[in-house]
């Protein structure tokens, strides 16, 4: 494959009424090529195992405190807010099931993805953007190393691997928050709570959440990498890359959420 640093200045479309649309299609084509390149190069040797582990640590472990707090609070708040509605029908005993299903099916994957888009996506965008601006990516190129493999592949794989783990961790922490609320309000034992919460969860729920988390992780990191790797215009470009990584990442996560929910609904009877 012939690779050249894209001469974006030279290929930028003229500033005409159709320029915006043209630019959008060029960007879409660039994103398509970027993604194809990941699949072409990501799984071929040489492998950057050490860097992959380092990125898993950075992305996974460093997001943990934020996700723990957010997941715990979400569990408490969701349980508290759901109680009055269920109490109206005398269905308070369904509270653990409701929380369990809500957390595992939607809240945990979405919450983890949004926090990761903010923390991981922006950090990837800014890091790669500043590496582009300070010619560190070019320095890798000229030292006969494939920077795409070292920088992009490792980050995308690390996020795609760690996000499902973080998602189930968030669901668990959310359930702990819900347990705290339920224990304080209804004096329910943890055994009954967990039995009830997990009772309604099916294999399809777990599969759907895992697939969603993988998809979200891939999207967030890919957007962050694309924005950072193709960052332009000095420090302003770095800021833009970080910002776009978050905004576009979150936007795509919501779109994917809608699509996957519709898709998995086909399998639920």
């Amino acid at each position, binding site marked *: 494959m012939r690779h050249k640093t894209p001469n974006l200045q030279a290929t930028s479309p003229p500033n005409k009424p159709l320029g915006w649309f043209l630019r959008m299609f060029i960007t879409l084509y660039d994103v398509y090529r970027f993604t194809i390149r990941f699949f072409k190069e990501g799984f071929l040797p040489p492998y950057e195992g050490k860097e992959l582990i380092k990125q898993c640590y950075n992305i996974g472990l460093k997001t943990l405190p934020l996700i723990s707090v957010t997941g715990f609070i979400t569990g408490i708040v969701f349980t508290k807010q759901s109680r009055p509605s269920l109490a109206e029908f005398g269905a308070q005993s369904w509270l653990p099931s409701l929380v369990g299903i809500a957390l595992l099916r939607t809240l945990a994957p979405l919450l983890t993805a949004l926090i990761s888009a903010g923390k991981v996506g922006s950090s990837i965008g800014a890091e790669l953007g500043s590496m582009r601006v*300070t*010619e560190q990516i070019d320095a890798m190129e000229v030292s006969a*190393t494939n920077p795409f493999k070292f920088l992009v592949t490792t980050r995308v794989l690390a996020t795609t691997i760690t996000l499902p783990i973080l998602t189930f961790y968030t669901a668990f922490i959310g359930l702990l928050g819900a347990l705290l609320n339920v224990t304080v309000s209804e004096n329910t034992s943890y055994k009954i709570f967990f039995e009830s919460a997990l009772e309604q969860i099916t294999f399809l729920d777990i599969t759907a959440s895992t697939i969603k988390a993988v998809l979200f992780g891939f999207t967030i990191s890919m957007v962050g990498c694309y924005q950072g790797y193709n960052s332009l215009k000095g420090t302003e470009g770095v800021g833009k890359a970080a910002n776009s990584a978050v905004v576009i990442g979150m936007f795509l996560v919501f779109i994917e959420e809608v699509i996957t929910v519709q898709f998995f609904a086909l399998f639920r009877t």
Partner: protein
Amino acid sequence: MEQKSATPQNTPTVIEINDLRIAFGDFEVLKGASLNLYKGENLVVLGKSGTGKSVLIKIISGLLKADSGLVKVLGNTVDDISYKELLKLRLRIGFSFQNSALYDSMTIRENLEFPLVRNRRELKKQQINVAVEEVLDAVGLSQTINQMPAELSGGQRKRIGIARTLILKPEIMLYDEPTAGLDPITCFEINNLINQVQQQYKTSSIIITHDLTCAKEVGNRVAMLLDGKFDRQGTFDAIFSQPDAQIKPFYDYNFIQ
């Protein structure tokens, strides 16, 4: 300050550039530039800022694609080879960036190991350590091995940048503004280092600069990039001894006078 000896005649060519053109939007930077780099020489490319000096060496290393023209490096036409072949060719070319381009998140040791670990996978840890110590010694910065790039001065960063390229023992060195933004003493040290690299590693180099002291101290030959072309090439004295309206201001405003 002594001027270096001129490149001997009948020396083989390592880089051949012919009728090179590149434009950014409507702005044409190189307008048919032609230049040769001969084996073992230090060729200084002089020119004002924004005249396309850095663009030239980025084209040579395959970082940028020219609109037209021929660039032949060590017998390979850069535009015609595959990415894999380009990576192989880059092993033989060292590129020292204007801002050093050290990897911020890595220590100096990791910076130096980076190209070696990825391109000489057969090397053992001990051999890599020896290579790292050798190049650090060559640039006189052995004590910085465990420091982060942010802890170094501008001159030290330049030296480490050069060391990182030397670790692959390149045949060609491309220096992008090696003395830009440095004090005169550090400039002197960097100039000495460029000459030392030429002798110790037997490299052929292109040095991009607008510093005439650097040009005189390190260049066997000088090429002036004027209006997108290399109209004037020769030894430093040969170029600057002639009364030339385009070159005179360049000389007059430099502290060398």
